[in-house]
């Protein structure tokens, strides 16, 4: 797929989504965009994610195939560092540590190297390259903070941790409403990921519309959110009334919430609905990755393959049958003379 097709199809798809809301609002479809779409999106999200995980779960893991990244547990006097214990885990406990590092700290991505080839020589060198790790983890955590902050719209009373996050997030007390750092960082990080995708020739070459689409979507979400908070203000009380009515399963659409809110909400709904049917399922998939979530102990414990096939083998008897004379001549012991 050419870059232009991949990039612009995703870009215009997101733009088209914005267009859809604006048209809908023009036709006063507040109930559709305020109630029906959010419910459908959340339903699709949950049903879709459960379906995906169950689908994976129904496929067995026939073999124990961890990618081992450290010294195995073997002789007692061979030292295993903490790193070895985590990345060549022998017990489930250490597998959990490995998974936690992977999920919470993006351990494998942290290892990332870049290669450069000096054709004189020739000489290959490898150097640590943590940019992708840095922006990926920044992106994920700022998104998480933004998401959790939004709980203030969905809860009454607002739980302490949400308020706490909020106060940390606006620690610098700049402007009014105070600037929340997570939103800005999210926008920067996601923009970096987009720029990287465009400028890194290899990544650009492999990118599909489904790689650009979530990026544009998230940029749209962050951008409309920031616009709404600082510039095109909406009636926050009414927004919370809508949000609460939704989670109380007693939907009511208050009048007079600004158009930008509906743009923001619709893009979020699209993200939720899109989630289970796209590469974004890696959120759940990473937990099931057999190269990471299995201990390196397959000589210690027998891993069971539920479909272990019965196969035709060449038995020793058949072997001896074929070579008996030659074996006899060579002086090898035989089962049957």
């Amino acid at each position, binding site marked *: 797929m050419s870059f232009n097709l991949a990039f612009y199809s995703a870009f215009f798809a997101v733009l088209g989504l914005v267009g859809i809301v604006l048209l809908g609002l023009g036709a006063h479809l507040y109930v559709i965009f305020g109630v029906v779409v959010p419910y459908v999106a959340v339903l699709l999200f949950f049903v879709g994610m459960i379906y995906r995980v169950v689908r994976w779960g129904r496929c067995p893991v026939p073999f124990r195939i961890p990618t081992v990244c450290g010294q195995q547990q073997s*002789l007692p006097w061979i030292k295993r560092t903490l790193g070895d214990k985590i990345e060549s885990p022998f017990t489930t406990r250490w597998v959990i540590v490995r998974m936690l590092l992977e999920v919470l700290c993006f351990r494998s991505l942290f290892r990332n190297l870049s290669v450069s080839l000096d054709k004189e020589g020739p000489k290959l060198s490898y150097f640590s390259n943590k940019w992708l790790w840095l922006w990926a983890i920044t992106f994920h955590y700022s998104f998480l903070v933004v998401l959790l902050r939004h709980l203030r719209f969905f809860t009454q009373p607002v739980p302490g941790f949400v308020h706490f996050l909020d106060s940390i997030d606006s620690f610098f007390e700049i402007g009014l409403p105070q600037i929340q750092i997570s939103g800005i960082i999210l926008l920067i990080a996601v923009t970096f990921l987009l720029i990287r995708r465009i400028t890194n020739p290899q990544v650009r070459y492999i990118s599909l519309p489904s790689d650009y689409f979530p990026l544009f979507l998230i940029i749209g979400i962050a951008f409309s959110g920031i616009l709404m908070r600082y510039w095109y203000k909406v009636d926050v009380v009414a927004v919370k009334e809508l949000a609460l009515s939704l989670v109380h399963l007693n939907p009511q659409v208050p009048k007079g919430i600004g158009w930008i809110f509906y743009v923001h909400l619709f893009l979020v709904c699209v993200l939720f609905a899109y989630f289970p049917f796209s590469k974004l399922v890696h959120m759940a998939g990473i937990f099931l990755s057999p190269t990471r979530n299995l201990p390196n102990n397959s000589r210690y414990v027998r891993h069971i393959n539920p479909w272990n096939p019965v196969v035709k083998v060449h038995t020793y008897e058949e072997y001896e049958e074929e070579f008996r004379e030659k074996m006899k001549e060579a002086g090898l012991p035989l089962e049957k003379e």
Partner: protein
Amino acid sequence: MAELPKPKELVDSIDYTPPAKPWMETRPEFKPGTYGYGVKAKNLKIMGFPNQRDFFPSEEDWKLPENWKEIFLEGMEDRLNRFRSFRLFMDICVRCGACADKCHYFIGGGDPKNMPVLRAELLRSIYKKYFTWPGKILGKLAGARELTYDVFKEIWYYMYQCSECRRCSVFCPYGIDTCEITMMGRELMNLLGCNLNWIGEPVANCYRTGNHLGIEPQGIVSIFEFLCDELADITGVKVDIKAHLNRKGADILFIVPSGSYFADPGTYTMEGEFLFLDYLEKKYGLKWTMSTYASEGGNFGLFTSNEAMKRLNAKMYAEAKRLGVKWILGGECGHMWRVIHQYMATMNGPADFLEVPRNPITGTVFEHAKETKMVHICEFTADLIRHGKLPLDPSRNDHWVVTYHDSCNPSRGMGLLEEPRYIIKNVCNNFYEMPENTIREKTFCCGSGAGLGSEENIITRMRGGLPRANAVKYVHEKYGVNVLCCICAIDRASFPPLLSYWVPGVDCCGIHELVGNALVLPEEERGIRQRKMDLRGNPLKGFEDEMEEE
């Protein structure tokens, strides 16, 4: 046979910039030197594999059955349901590109379809088209594409340009393992009889004669006797090898890759192992045996299909049972240990007729191998050295300046990192590590693994071996390293041509060749005899002049 360009020309041809044409629109050129010969009908026949005919990838017509597309897609669906890894890895890749420059074939060649992500995408595009609804509806926009004859050939080409080394998997944030994808791809190829002959023939040989090379029992006897004669000339020790073949009632069954007794420099490792085991028997009474039936540790079934792997591997336990040994000792081989460590107990177990491996000399119980009942010779030797059971004179390896290559499978499939290093440090005085990003779990493949080591595939092999060879070059220039030590038979077969191409002046050896050199035999200990040659028949340091006079 392909014309191999000069190293300089090969390096100059590396271009990491992807072509202007999108990848779905390019097709590989089947240039001589970049792929292996197709499998022969006779080999498919021995195994009873489908589509038995002589296969020529260079020809336009691959003689596929009429319904090849159904077979491929049904095979794919079947595997998507049987392997969670396959389905999951098809689903969760985000194309972040972290794996792109981790593949040695990409680093040494620059073909974007050798980036692990794109190699997987070749199959993923088919998966999307036929097994996901976004792909069915949106087609190309969702990254899906039709399975055509050309696409099939393209998948074939790149499934046989992956050596299943798993380096990319180390760096993938989700642990996506291209090896798994390649294995699935190759299983599909085998449903249509499209294996390489360099894999298909060893598989057929191994099935019939017990080893990849098709050596019949009397042949093994004569090869072993020849090696033992050589050994006797160098060390004065005569190993009565015939008494050790197919011997019942021994303590251990020793299984090595046939590469160890077929060609240099593997044979020196084999000699070292003979000397070592003979020493243990004479000194400590360890009874060992080798089998002509289970005369292969390696398993090219791994590169064919999981069923083929199981069919070939079954003989290990079967023979251990027939001979009534207590446990099995495995030799220096890479992919063999992937199979033994990660597959064997699952496929061929439980081996309840064997005992939990225990070193009778040191009393060490190899608890970590209690299920498989199979111990790596490096674990065994390291244990003996640790307990002071092996008198060693490391100065006998002073003519070598050693570096150690972690073979892909023992490192990333097993975690055998410290045992070999411990042995090396005890048997030689000059040991230098290669740069840290090229060893241990980040080690580079020799470029010829997973059945790609054939002569006609030479350009791909030299390209794929560049990263490894280049790291060797670094220590060669910096420390004067003159031998690359490894514990893999494919390595020992592929490094000599690779190193002479990229780093002339560096040899290749196995660990037990060095152990054999350093091992001080009883007669030597008592001063009755003196070792003047290494196992290759080259003079030891200090004996160069004497040897010349003789």
